């Protein structure tokens, strides 16, 4: 008698994104991604200051990880300065120093819009678990896309390791490592590694068309599908109505 299928232990954990259990539809990895994308479209398309600021605040609150939140916050002065340089001195209503009143308003409105879209996208994006998302996408999109997405996420630690090795090599030769001097060997080394991986990948027939088997598939629920459709329609409505 064949053994009954036992789900992966992780899939029994309630509320884990993308896995069966009593989790909310929004916690499905694709639902999180769709929410992020729909919000970005709504903020950019609706072009409403309150919506932009709301998205900025919500995005910052939702962002997981101090580093990512700090990265979003660090964009505020850079983006604001860029728009202030472009618009603030060129308005018609006099303000303070080179800052005209209407030009500054335009600049800050545009900056709030970009920052709102960015913070919203990052906030929801930071809640996506890449592994369930890749497993969910595997049978649904071309295999090449999933491979490239997954490999890119895994390559960053390898690149960091190579960077540290290069620094070590330079120090062992009595040379103080400089970023500019390490960039070329880093890129050349990474490409050389990729060349080493390319042939085996080719021999396994990775690029051949056809369905892929996923060992631990991520199920989808009608409620999650309905949620995604509703979110996209809501974004569309905001763009049209506001």
């Amino acid at each position: 008698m064949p053994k009954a299928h036992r789900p992966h232990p992780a899939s029994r954990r309630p509320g884990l994104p993308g896995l069966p259990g009593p989790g909310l539809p929004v916690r499905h990895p694709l639902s999180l991604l769709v929410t992020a994308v729909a919000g970005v479209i709504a903020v950019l398309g609706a072009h409403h200051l309150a919506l932009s600021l709301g998205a900025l605040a919500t995005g910052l609150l939702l962002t997981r990880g101090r580093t990512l939140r700090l990265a979003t916050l660090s964009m505020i002065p850079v983006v604001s300065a860029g728009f202030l340089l472009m618009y603030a001195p060129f308005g018609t209503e006099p303000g303070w120093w080179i800052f005209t009143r209407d030009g500054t308003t335009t600049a800050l409105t545009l900056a709030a819009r970009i920052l709102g879209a960015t913070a919203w996208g990052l906030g929801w994006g930071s809640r996506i678990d890449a592994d369930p998302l890749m497993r969910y996408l595997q049978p649904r999109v071309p295999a090449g896309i999933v491979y490239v997405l997954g490999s890119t996420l895994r390559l960053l630690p390898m690149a960091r390791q190579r960077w540290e090795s290069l620094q070590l090599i330079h120090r062992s030769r009595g040379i103080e490592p400089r970023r500019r001097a390490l960039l070329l060997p880093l890129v050349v080394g990474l490409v050389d590694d990729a060349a080493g991986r390319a042939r085996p990948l080719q021999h396994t027939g990775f690029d051949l068309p056809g369905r892929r088997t996923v060992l631990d598939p991520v199920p989808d629920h009608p409620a999650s599908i309905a949620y995604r459709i509703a979110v996209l329609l809501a974004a569309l409505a905001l763009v049209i109505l506001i």
Partner: protein
Amino acid sequence: MPVTSPAPEPAPTPTSTPTPSAHQPAPSAAPLNGWRRIALILAGACIVATWLYLVLTQPSDSSFTGLADSRSTTIALAGFTAPALAMLMIVIPRLPARSLALMPVALVVNIVLGQLVGTMGLPLPLYLDSIGTVLVGALAGPAAGLVTGVLSALIWGTINPTVVCFAATYAFVGAAAGWIARRGWWTGRWWPIALASLIVGFISALLSAPVASFIFGGTAGTGTGLLVSAFRSLGADPMLAVFLQSWTSDPLDKLIVFTLVWLVVRALPQRSIRAFLPDAAPARDA
């Protein structure tokens, strides 16, 4: 071999495998036939039509003094991003595994350098966000370059959603690097690469300026903002100032990027260059 024109590839047999020359790199995608070719042409036409509509009519539905309002943003978002995504879905199933193996490296290089330059407070009117895309184009051909450009925008978009809108520009830069590779310039002298980079920079500025103008209302960096401000001080209107800033920044940026890639290609071992050439595997049917 261009993406849209099929060319015969020799069957790889142990006795007849040619030794590919680094001076004659060729694209790595299997030929696109039938509906795929038509869809690719339509996607390109959609980008051109969006560009023409936005630049010639400058649509607006408000009295907002900036360039980006609701209507123009929606048109630019749909007209530039959707066709780029369609191109990705059309081309990526035709790419061999060895091109796919190179792409993650390219994406990491793009994202790390692009994010570093884009978010630093220094007034540097450069982007340096397409080194990996150009590298893939140079080694694996225009189709692989195009796909890397779009994927770069999508993956970088997870930490900076604004770059997704520039997917069509990135796709063009990658494809252009591949077309240059067909002429064997990447392992030749520097000046043809420099000349090509200036032309690619000029055209990519044409593509990216309407995106920056109509979706974001201008540029979001301090260096590029300073340039726009300088051009506006000289009397240019906001859109012309963004175009002039792009025509200043993009050719310079591409000159640096293409020169770096030229150095990388020259430093690579021949076996690495050969690994990404197309004659290592049989072509697939359409």
